[in-house]
């Protein structure tokens, strides 16, 4: 029943899921958060009632993303902190040729 198109979409979705999971693991590890990647949703805010990060955590996140992905986040890119998806979109937009 599976046509090639839906199969490739599924592969892409799985790859994105894996990348998001890796990013969540990275954030949890670097910020020593007391939760597992599975309970962090892709669209929940990183601040406030989401992951409850503060401004000091934000800078640590900037350093981590720079070290791991070679992507610099500046004051103009704060939309990247809206969610895991937003962060991954930002990283991919700066790393894909």
């Amino acid at each position, binding site marked *: 029943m599976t046509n090639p198109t839906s199969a490739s979409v599924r592969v892409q979705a799985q790859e994105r899921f894996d990348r998001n999971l890796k990013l969540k693991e990275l954030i949890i590890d670097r910020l020593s958060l007391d939760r597992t990647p599975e309970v962090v949703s892709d669209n929940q805010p990183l601040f406030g009632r989401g992951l409850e990060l503060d401004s*000091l955590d*934000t*800078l*640590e996140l*900037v*350093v981590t993303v*720079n070290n791991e992905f070679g992507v610099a*986040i*500046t004051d103009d890119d704060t939309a990247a902190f809206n969610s895991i998806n937003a962060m991954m979109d930002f990283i991919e937009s700066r790393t894909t040729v």
Partner: protein
Amino acid sequence: MSAAAVRLSSDGRYDSDAIKRMLPHRWPMLMIDRAYDVEPGKFGRGIKCVTVNEPFFAGHYPDQSIMPGVMIIEAMAQLVAVVYVAEALQSADAEQFGELDADTARDPRAGVGYLGAVRQMKFSRLVVPGDQLVLEARMGSRLGGLRSVNVSASVGSERAAAGTLTVSER
């Protein structure tokens, strides 16, 4: 030029008198004796000579003098403040004011910020009276008023401490 004015150093060196005009810290909490190789806003090295007369040795410990790790971190943070103030002096130079003055609203000491976080600090050697701590600070990522700084302290060829500080602008 008033006695309290401080200028951007052309060779990146600041002696203790210049540092006292750059930082608000005073005895017993002024923890840096000299700064050199200072690249404003980017990098700097500093020296803290540790003597048996340091007040913290009276209690840390009465029978064995060991410089507390938090005091090493404080010395590192003060070097970071010097690198920061040098950047402010550089901007002042660029604006052709030339110098910052303790008698005016442009007192550089007013810009010295706060320590926000200490991350992954590792202490690998005891620091004792007679040691000369060579401090190093390299400024990293910046976001808003916060900045990440890689810092280290060595005695001779031995690493005494290294880690990352997050500092805030005031």
